[in-house]
């Protein structure tokens, strides 16, 4: 597929990508035949954060390209079900950004970057209304305002939603807006390297990116002083995950290889309710809305076990009797929330304990029951996708029988360390937003805070990337030709190995097994050390990856490249998890069961000084940014 850059005012556009056509721009380069494009801002990833960043950069006057591994509109954001958390106060006028901020910080066990949490809570409502301006059709309140639903950890009903397919609405709205703005999109195009030009001091400035078209296997060079990473998460490193194949930690790894740092990588969120049967859909998400709309968790003895797992921290706001919990759905003022709606980490651990204690369901989960608690009409209206999903894939009618659910790897709180206001990493010109960025969610993310995170920080990253390029004027860093050649060689290495090469599918499977077994929900020092040894072994094997076939749409080759990213992030997770000797949020250590105040002031920062997946990850401690007094008061 030929796709070219946006120069010389030609109006013809490429059918697939929608990019403006100009044959002169695609001329063969002096070295090889690389397609070259010049942009101000290159956004990697076309999920919620990437598309919002592209819109923001475009609005700020930058020439923008979106580069994504899949077709436009297929990003993992479509899987988000519940809603977008924003304190619009449409149902509860008492709700405001301070309450949302407080909920977010408490959900993250105070390890969040306070400034990010503040910006997020302040800006989310306007970001939601913007989507409506661009054509989103949210569910309405009787007054005609955007309806908001209850979710775990949120004080008020706060999630703007469309049934249980909010992510789809968001991605489609952004996609249609991006298309109407005429932003260039490079679909099925994978970035493998980010180029830097040496700067006087510090880790250098971004000069561009290197990618290949999945369709043809041909390479593309993007010359751009600003790159926004919006690549999502790392879930594909685990066996049981709600994440798709794309979630191989590309942005995390690219950032590290470029010299940026990651924080909070030990915090991986296991969503408490994933499908457990049939095997082919194990891990597939069952939305938290099921519990928000009245679903109860029961063990094999029929007991609502969550009442036994209410932690001290949340005792004050959680119902301790079935009567009170039942009363909450109708009267939220005079009753406390059911324990099923505790933050995700608490619920996931509770389910894990029940299963371990032998009170699990036949397929190794627990029961999530809404059938006996709400009528069929209500369930089908509020949870259409869930109804469909269980009916089609598991032959279970959720209006008649309970669902079997268990924890599934869902989200990584950790990510690229960025400046809270600009989303710039420590590498000049390298920005990150969405799941790939770290800090916002602390040690645990509240449901609904992800979609709002994408919008708030996507926009900020896009804006600031555009401003940065404007400030540069003509002082644009150049790409070194050697770097381009090395990037191409690196990408093609798996074709060079002839005999005795390793199968990428096998290594990926082995890695998933290691992470699931040894770096799962409950962790110990022994297992984490073992995991690091195993990962080291896998890295050694991955030096000899070999693929069959040619460069044209070859999934084996694509996996071989993504796999190295997975190895880097897996090492980061295991290393940070071994270092943090406490239990907090998405990180639970069997050998250090409680939270530890001194650890509550520390971020673990990971870097990859060698710049290559085979080189070791380094770790250091860094104090948490200190919250100003007026925000501190909210927690008294």
């Amino acid at each position, binding site marked *: *597929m030929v796709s070219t850059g946006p120069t010389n005012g030609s109006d013809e*556009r490429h*059918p*697939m990508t*929608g990019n403006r056509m100009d044959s002169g721009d695609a001329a063969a380069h002096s070295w090889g035949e690389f397609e070259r494009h010049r942009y101000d801002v290159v956004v990697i990833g076309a999920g919620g954060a990437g598309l919002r960043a592209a819109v923001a950069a475009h609005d700020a006057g930058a020439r923008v390209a979106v580069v994504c591994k*899949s*077709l436009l*509109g*297929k990003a*993992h954001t*479509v*899987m988000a079900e519940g809603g977008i958390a924003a304190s*619009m106060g449409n149902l509860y006028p008492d709700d405001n950004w301070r309450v949302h901020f407080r909920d977010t910080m408490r959900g993250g066990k105070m390890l969040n970057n306070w400034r990010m949490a503040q910006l997020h809570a302040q800006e989310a409502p306007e970001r939601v*209304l913007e989507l*409506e*301006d661009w*054509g989103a*059709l*949210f*569910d*309405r309140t009787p*007054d*005609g*305002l*955007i309806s908001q639903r209850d979710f775990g950890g949120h004080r008020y009903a706060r999630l703007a939603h*469309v049934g249980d*397919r909010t992510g*789809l609405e968001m991605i*489609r709205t952004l996609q*249609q*807006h991006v*298309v*109407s703005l005429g932003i260039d999109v490079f*679909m099925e195009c994978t970035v493998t390297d980010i180029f830097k030009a040496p700067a006087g001091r510090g880790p250098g400035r971004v000069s561009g990116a290197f990618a290949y078209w999945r*369709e043809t296997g041909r390479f593309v060079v993007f010359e751009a002083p600003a790159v926004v990473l919006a690549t999502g998460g790392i879930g594909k490193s685990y066996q049981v995950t709600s994440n*798709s*194949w794309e979630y191989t930690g590309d942005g995390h790894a690219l950032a590290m290889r470029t010299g940026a740092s990651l924080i909070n990588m030990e915090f991986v969120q296991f969503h408490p309710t994933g499908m457990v049967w*049939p*095997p*082919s*859909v194990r891990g*597939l*998400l069952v939305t938290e809305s099921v519990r928000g709309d009245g679903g109860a968790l029961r063990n094999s003895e029929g007991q609502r076990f969550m009442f036994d797992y209410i932690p001290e921290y949340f005792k004050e706001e959680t119902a301790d009797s079935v009567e009170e919990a039942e009363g909450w759905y109708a009267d939220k003022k005079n009753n406390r929330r059911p324990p099923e709606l505790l933050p995700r980490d608490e619920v996931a651990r509770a389910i894990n304990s029940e299963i371990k204690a032998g009170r699990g369901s036949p397929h190794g989960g627990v029961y999530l029951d809404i059938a006996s608690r709400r009528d069929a009409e209500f369930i089908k209206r509020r949870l259409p996708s869930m109804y*469909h*999903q269980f009916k*089609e*894939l*598991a032959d279970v009618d959720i209006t008649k029988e309970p669902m079997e659910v268990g924890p599934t790897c869902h989200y990584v709180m950790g990510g690229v360390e960025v400046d809270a206001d600009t989303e710039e990493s420590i590498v000049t010109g390298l920005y990150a937003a969405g799941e790939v960025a770290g800090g916002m969610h602390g040690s645990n993310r509240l449901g609904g805070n992800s979609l709002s995170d994408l919008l708030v920080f996507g926009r900020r990253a896009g804006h600031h990337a555009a401003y940065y390029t404007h400030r540069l004027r003509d002082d644009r860093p150049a790409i070194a030709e050697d770097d381009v050649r090395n990037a191409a060689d690196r990408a093609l290495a798996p074709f060079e190995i002839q005999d005795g090469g390793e*199968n*990428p*599918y096998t290594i990926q499977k082995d890695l998933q097994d290691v992470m699931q077994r040894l770096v799962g929900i409950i962790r110990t020092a022994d297992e984490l050390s073992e995991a690091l040894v195993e990962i080291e072994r896998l890295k050694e094997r991955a030096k000899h990856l070999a*693929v*069959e*076939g040619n460069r*044209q*749409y*070859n*999934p*084996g*080759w694509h996996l071989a490249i993504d796999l190295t990213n997975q190895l880097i992030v897996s090492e980061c997770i295991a290393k940070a998890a071994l270092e943090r000797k406490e239990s907090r949020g998405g990180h639970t250590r069997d050998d250090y069961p409680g939270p530890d105040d001194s650890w509550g002031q520390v971020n673990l920062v990971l870097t990859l000084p060698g710049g290559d997946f085979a080189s070791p990850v380094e770790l250091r401690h860094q104090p948490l940014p200190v919250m100003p007094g007026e925000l501190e008061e909210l927690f008294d």
Partner: protein
Amino acid sequence: MGYDLSMRVWRGDAGGGALGDYTVAVEEGEVVLDAIHRLQATQAGDLAVRWNCKAGKCGSCSAEVNGRPRLMCMTRLSDFDPAETITVTPVRTFPVIRDLVTDVSYNYEKARQVPAVQLPPRDPDGKRRMMQQDVQRGQEFRKCIECFLCQDVCHVIRDHEDNKPKYAGPRFFIRYAELDMHPLDTTDRRKLAQDAAGLGMCNITKCCTEVCPEGIKITDNAIIPMKERVVDRKYDPVTWLGSKIRRRDPRDEV
């Protein structure tokens, strides 16, 4: 409970190709995409297939299973006899890239031709008000996951390559319908739908509705209402006369 499944999978590219025979070990509760993945991991590492969520939500793994347009991730093996050979081919309306992957550019091109939503300014308090009953018709169409199976099965382009330039297809008819039914939108797209998008070429034989994995009633709820709206605009002498005399589009009143 596992068994050996006989499969025929189309391998090739734009230059040519053929159905290849394979035997794959499959387990209880699996879907066609699982079988394809196992084939890829164990026997054909370079078998090209497009997929993402594996949960029927992203609409990437469209193909034809035993000649029927389906999402591979939502086609359960238990729907077939274990002794039956399952044939999987790429969708046959779009140019093939390789194996099961096709070039769906057509759809992205058509998407760009639909004029975007245009809303008036917000209410004075900075919010917008729309009633649930006014948005729910549009919400049905926004369930679309863009798997393009409706486009694949539509005979107007499946059987007539030459119609592609002037026909937008069912996926975009529901987009036109969604925008036309939007309670706040201000643009009249009816003439465009009939002329540029080729709504008149649809002969409502309903295959799009039959294959929609989201169960969207494409024909009854979008195409036919759009045809009726076009009649309002183009073929109804009473409203035509009314709009000439009163200089007002009846659309504004409702």
